[in-house]
């Protein structure tokens, strides 16, 4: 039981770990340019 609990806690920690990605350093959003119809 203890081993199963430990395995569950470790699996949860692995699943939730990490520090995220890196934000883009340049560029930005602007209104979509569309071809004239």
């Amino acid at each position, binding site marked *: 039981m203890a081993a199963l609990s430990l395995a569950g806690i470790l699996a949860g920690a692995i699943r*939730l770990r*990490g520090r995220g990605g890196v934000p883009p350093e340049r560029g*930005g*959003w602007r*209104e979509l340019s*569309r071809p004239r119809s």
Partner: protein
Amino acid sequence: MKPTGIVGLGAVGSRVARQLTASGSHLAVFDTDHGAISELRSSPNTVALIDANLRDDMTDVAVVATPAPQAPIALDLLRRGVHVVTTTDDPDDVHELLGHDAEIERLGRCLVVGAAASPGMSGLLVAELRQRFDEIDEIHAAFHGTGGPACARQHHRALGGDAIGWHDGEWIERPGGSGRELFWFPEPIGGKDCYRAELADPIVLHRAFPTVNRISARVSATRRDRLTARLPMMSPPHPEGGLGGIRIEVRGSLAGARVTHVAGIAERTAVIAGAVAASVADQLQGLVSNGGVPAGVVVLGDGRLDETALMTAVIQRGIEVFEYIGAAD
């Protein structure tokens, strides 16, 4: 012209109704909830029905905006001669609807599958970006937020399910909640960690763009979302959902060079879904008058509807669409 039918007046259905009445359309709406229907009953353009079937002689085109499964309602309407627009985002529901293509074509009716935010708007964005390439080979979709309560429950289930993706000519399955990537959505959403989930978008996008080699879809999630994904929902979902986002990245080639284009939207998910479904229903109504409704199953992006006109209509209904400029291609 007969009124446009709407079945279900939840977060999405009521937005479709508002969008269509704002553009002068006549409606026949059906819901079992007296409260949801009372607001529309006062509109001179609306026939409101409670606890009764939407009859086939009332309408040529109906939008089904109920919680999943939408397939039984949609198929019943199609067999009674009505063209149907569905807003489902449930993968099983989408599979079921796509499987009836031959029957619907034989009936000479049109079924639009997944005309909402995701799927739906995602296909329109890919179709819009597609024009900038000679060929496209990768589509990566990411979503943030949910529409109404049914959409929020679907989002919760999706993180605990098996995520499918199209990878070099075959379907792959990965656990929901894996594969974290940081995606940048239009402001004010900004950066969100997104994860694989059991979403309908890869199925619909593969149907629309069958030659694309890789298709993936992710949703934003917090640590708590991922930790509780396989448990019942801890708190009841918000009735209207919050600000949602769509980010579509398309990769391909132009004049022999590798090119990437990214488009996105930041808006309430139900508002996006309402604008897309209303625009599709409006276009189908126009095609009914001209006798040019495509027969069989249609998904947005497959080119069987006028997608340039649909994108224009969605923008005119107040949805701001952005593109990301300045990143390395």
